[in-house]
């Protein structure tokens, strides 16, 4: 899970990483109250999970109450590259002398945290890496011994930070490592890591990605879920415990097993289709989960056809069939389905579906055949101008052979 800047800074602060004082706000009044406490000049910053806030006008330095009001009004509700600003962060202004860059990445190849430090802060680090790779000092920390003083010194000297801040920068990196390990982050990034004119060192931005699998032992982090920023379908799937990723196309996809679903997306694309989602119903899916999954897939109004691609291992094909029958009973979908059932109890599953004789459900015997069929169905639906919404419980009729009328 990605954190908003201010959530990241609050997490940093818990581990002693120095950050400017600040307060979050979700209304103009709250923002003004915060600014009054923090004092002027201060900075009003849009809290969104996307870069380029500054260029989009999402960060404003204000020198009095009027400017603060103007800034808060302008920024709250602003759209930044598709992200609506629901929260702002009001922060004490900083007198910046130098801008550095620091991050810790969970490096899967090296199986160790990778620490990066550069004196070229305030810009995109991937650009710096491309233009001037030597400008970035990097080292791995052995997770069994953890961060040592020498790691900080080595990074600082190799990156070429100002001599007088080698020690505080090293100390900040030590705290950052503490935060990375204690909060089980996959990424912590400070850009810029600033040296102020009083030569104190502060994290002026915070980008933190946490490991969702660790949330059972970090209830506070789990509670941070920035629900408002999530796609409505993804939120709905999350509530139902389904593994769902929203995509741009019009073919709903359900399969069992992450690899098989990814493969299904690829094969559908190769067949000329555009998947609307990734949905892994998981191993051993029960009928109820399938019903809920169909509900989530169809809640996306763009979906014009759905592909079920099941290769049953632990998953039993008869359970999948039962779930699909139940879904049709409850939701009465108006779009065509293509179903490929193979593996454990596939005969029983196919028999159940044949018996149920669901409207507009097409059987396929291979993955490729199924993909080609669903692409064809989605295409003809587009041609025939299927209405945009097919929300659960809502009957739209009009699509050929679909709807509760059949």
């Amino acid at each position: 899970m990605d954190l908003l800047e201010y959530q990241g800074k609050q997490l940093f602060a818990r581990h002693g990483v120095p950050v400017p004082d600040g307060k979050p706000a979700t209304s103009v009044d709250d923002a003004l109250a915060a600014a009054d406490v923090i004092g002027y000049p201060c900075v009003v910053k849009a809290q969104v999970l996307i870069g380029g806030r500054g260029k989009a006008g999402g960060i404003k330095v204000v020198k009095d109450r009027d400017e603060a009001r103007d800034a808060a009004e302008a920024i709250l509700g602003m759209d930044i590259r598709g992200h609506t600003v629901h929260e702002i962060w009001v922060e004490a202004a900083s007198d910046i002398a130098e801008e550095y860059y620091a991050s810790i990445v969970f490096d899967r190849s090296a199986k160790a945290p990778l620490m990066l430090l550069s004196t070229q802060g305030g810009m995109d680090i991937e650009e710096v890496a491309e233009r001037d790779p030597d400008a970035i000092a990097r080292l791995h920390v052995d997770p069994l011994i953890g961060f040592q003083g020498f790691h900080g010194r080595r990074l600082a000297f190799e990156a070429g930070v100002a001599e007088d801040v080698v020690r505080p920068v090293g100390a900040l990196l030590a705290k950052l490592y503490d935060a990375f390990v204690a909060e089980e982050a996959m990424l912590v990034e400070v850009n810029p890591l600033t040296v102020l004119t009083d030569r104190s060192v502060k994290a002026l931005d915070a980008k933190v990605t946490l490991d969702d699998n660790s949330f059972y032992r970090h209830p506070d982090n789990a509670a941070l879920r920035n629900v408002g920023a999530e796609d409505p379908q993804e939120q709905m799937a999350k509530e139902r415990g389904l593994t769902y990723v929203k995509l741009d196309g019009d073919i709903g996809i359900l399969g069992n097993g992450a690899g098989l679903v990814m493969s299904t997306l690829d094969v559908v694309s190769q067949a000329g289709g555009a998947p609307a989602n990734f949905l892994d119903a998981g191993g051993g899916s029960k009928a109820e989960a399938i019903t809920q999954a169909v509900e989530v897939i169809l809640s996306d109004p763009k979906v014009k056809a759905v592909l079920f691609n099941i290769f049953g291992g632990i998953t039993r094909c008869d359970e999948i069939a039962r779930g699909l029958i139940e879904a049709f009973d409850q939701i009465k979908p108006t779009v065509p389905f293509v179903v490929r059932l193979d593996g454990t109890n596939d005969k029983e599953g196919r028999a159940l579906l044949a018996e149920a004789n669901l409207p507009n459900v097409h059987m396929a015997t291979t993955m490729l055949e199924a993909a080609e069929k669903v692409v064809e169905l989605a295409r003809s639906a587009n041609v025939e101008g299927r209405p945009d919404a097919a929300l659960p419980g809502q009957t739209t009729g009009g699509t050929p052979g679909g709807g509760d009328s059949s």
Partner: protein
Amino acid sequence: MSVLIDKDTRLCVSGITGREGTFHAMNNKRYGTNVVSGVTPGKGGQDVEGVPVLNTFHAAVSETGANTAMIFVPPPFAADSILEAADAGIETVICITEGIPAHDELRVYNFLRAHRPTVRLIGPNCPGVLSPGKANVGIIPAAFFKEGNVGVVSRSGTLTYQIGNELAQRGFGNSSIVGIGGDPVPGSSFIDVIELFQADDETELIVMSGEIGGSAEEEAAEYIGEHVTKPVVGYIAGFTAPPGKTMGHAGAIVSGSQGTAAAKAEALEGRGVRVGRTPTEVADIAVEILGG
């Protein structure tokens, strides 16, 4: 021959008294796997359909001669159970559990490599290992596979079944099927398993099924280019996955320009590995190479 598990496997199942644990342990046992014991703290002295349950792996090793562990406990207990098995002297630890925190995996991986170098961990978040006709440890549906000379190693479970099934339909069987799992820090990599297949007399062709995220496929390509003389056929899932999204497996994520399917396929092809674009094509290539 086969790799990792065979008729000498003496399996102890951690979490054997759980519903899923019992189901799959018994399934493995019916297949012919020598399931010698299970471990559930506090249930020592009981049995599960005749398989004795012990309180600790140390007791399982000393009292039932277990040499292989299957970990089937929930994520909060899995790292501990892996370390316990390794500490007790188990040689092969196969962890099915999905959802273990990445930092736990990091600690376990680094500890085992340096402090228990003879222990081999497969998984976590994997379907296990099947050596058709010999032993099955995990949740791979054995009915789709038969004995043969294709070694399969994969980050994905169902995709493995899909590929194995397509091979079986064309008359080819497997030496072993190894699921290394879809997590950020798998205990064994493609390289570790490919090395075993290269050394295995029975294996004549290796299928590796990768997916987006990380660089394990690129590293494997490098290794294959330098050390593997047997033919390898590759598959990569996730060409159409958008960046920054975790695609079901915790490890399946394209980060910026890192970990794309295209780069992985290219790395493999650059080392002479033929990469199928669909599971069906993978089976076709394998059959072509083996001269079926």
